[in-house]
């Protein structure tokens, strides 16, 4: 058990940008070729990108693995789906094919799937840019012959990310937008709530990523309906490897009190009921 860490495959590679595509105003999908990282990656894991060689910005940026690129059934690369929010993501969006980035990954503990039994319904809930890691998760669940129910929410139709991709995988996501421009007007957790209410007694597990208030709501819904929830959290990071202890969140201890756990190592995916909001 103690040697688990050493067996982890983590690569530090200089990867050149294969493709950079704007998918909505301020949202981009970046494709990177890397058989190693894509082969080692599991849904919910992430990479750290050093966006510029110089000291500004200094620290690498965490980005979830959005999807795996395959050729002839081999994993040859991966994509990230990201939103421009600050200096790092703006610079990232200016990278073009051929430019290179230093990438560390795959990192973190993703969604736990081994315990999912065939009676269970996986429920995927994504809000805004939180949709990013969930496409990879849906793919993986399908490969394992589960058919998740997918809920996607956003501010507006425009920002409903990856809807097409989910659809082309054969899903029919239940959709909400805050401005009502697509699907039901309101929060994605409202949709989720009605669904859970309508299907009481469902054997299910919730997999969610999105803004903190959405996750908190998802956790409390899960609790009400006695379901397990796995939530992907964010925190500022430096090392991504569990070394700096910079990225902790507050997690309930088994008995009482709390401890700080690392989003980059124990997480980013945590059990909803363990998180102290």
């Amino acid at each position, binding site marked *: 058990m*103690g040697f688990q860490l*050493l067996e982890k495959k983590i690569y*530090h590679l200089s990867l050149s940008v294969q493709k950079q595509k704007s998918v909505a105003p301020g949202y981009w999908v970046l494709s990177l070729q890397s058989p190693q990282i894509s082969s080692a990656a599991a849904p919910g894991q992430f990479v750290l990108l050093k966006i510029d060689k110089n000291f500004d910005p200094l*620290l690498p940026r965490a980005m979830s693995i959005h999807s795996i690129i395959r050729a002839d059934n081999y994993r040859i690369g991966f994509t990230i789906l990201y939103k421009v929010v600050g200096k790092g993501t703006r610079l990232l969006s200016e990278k073009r094919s051929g430019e290179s980035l230093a990438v560390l990954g795959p990192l973190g503990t993703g969604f736990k799937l081994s315990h999912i039994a065939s009676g269970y319904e996986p429920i995927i809930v994504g809000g805004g840019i939180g949709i990013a890691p969930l496409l990879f998760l849906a793919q993986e669940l399908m490969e394992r012959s589960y058919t998740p129910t997918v809920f996607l929410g956003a501010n507006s139709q425009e920002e409903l990310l990856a809807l097409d991709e989910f659809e082309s995988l054969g899903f029919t996501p239940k959709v909400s937008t805050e401005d009502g421009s697509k699907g039901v007007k309101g929060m994605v957790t409202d949709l989720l709530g009605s669904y859970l209410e309508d299907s009481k007694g469902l054997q299910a597990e919730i997999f969610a990523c999105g803004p903190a208030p959405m996750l908190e709501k998802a956790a409390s819904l899960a609790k009400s309906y006695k379901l397990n929830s796995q939530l992907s959290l964010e925190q*500022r990071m430096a090392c*991504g490897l569990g*070394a700096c202890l*910079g990225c*902790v969140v507050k997690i309930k201890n088994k008995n009482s009190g709390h401890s700080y756990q690392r989003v980059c190592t124990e997480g980013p995916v945590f059990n909803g009921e363990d998180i102290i909001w």
Partner: protein
Amino acid sequence: MVASSSPSLSVELNGLKLKNPIIAASGTFGYGLEYAPLGDLGKLGGIVTKGLSMWEEKGNPPPRICETPAGMLNSIGLDNIGIENFITEKLPQLIRYDTAFIVNIWGRETDDYIKAAERLDEAKGIAALEVNISCPNIKKGGITFGTDPSVTFKLVQAVRKRTALPLLVKLTPNVTDIILIARSAEDAGANALSLINTLLGMEIDVSTRRPSLANITGGLSGPAIRPVALQMVYQTAKKVNIPLVGVGGISSVADVIKFMLAGASAVQIGTANFFDPTICWRLVDELEEYLRNDNISDVNQLVGAMREE
């Protein structure tokens, strides 16, 4: 005139032998194992653990880190698994790597340091202790030990008596005259001095009007502070007779050489591990390459070799 044999990279810090002068700095390399997936730890000159105390320490609430121009702030608050857990859980895994494991220790009272030194003295596989008298992130103890020469003297002397392990003493830059502190540590029996720890700093998020760190203030590290660290190494090297380990913003082989020219016998790499996670390994190779290209047979020839005339 190509050197016929490989240049010698090994250095000796007054009782602590290192195969090369590249050491991973405390708090930035975990307990070593975290970086094991990226390279052979046995290639490095040394690894300093996260600061350990006699107890398990939760540390400060998040957010604990924040980026600043060419640097970062941290207020980890010395979160650590405790010396006992380190000895039972980490050390057995570490000893298979042929590198110098240096345990960084801290406490709130002198007695905490004494107990830590005694306990670690018994453990096998530890090359040296680094006495952290300089962490800005705990409210009591820590920083105060390293800002008063007589307190430094007493603390280092007390620790010195309890262990035969080589002692590095890690100094804070947040003082008027680092030489006074350095001399006190030397007089009290330190084998070597590590300088510098982080500078006190803070950042505010204008959009929320809140401090960026939950702890409000934190320690500044990274390339931004390199000129400060280099100056302190240079000034201190002229005034003490024990070896110095340079730390602060080092992120290239040129930086390593600068610190050695200024008088450091070895260096530690901290924040650079975060933005360049394989840097420690690369620096070992690049340093050897530099020596070879410049026809320098022994890395010790760099130490203090800055030209001043």
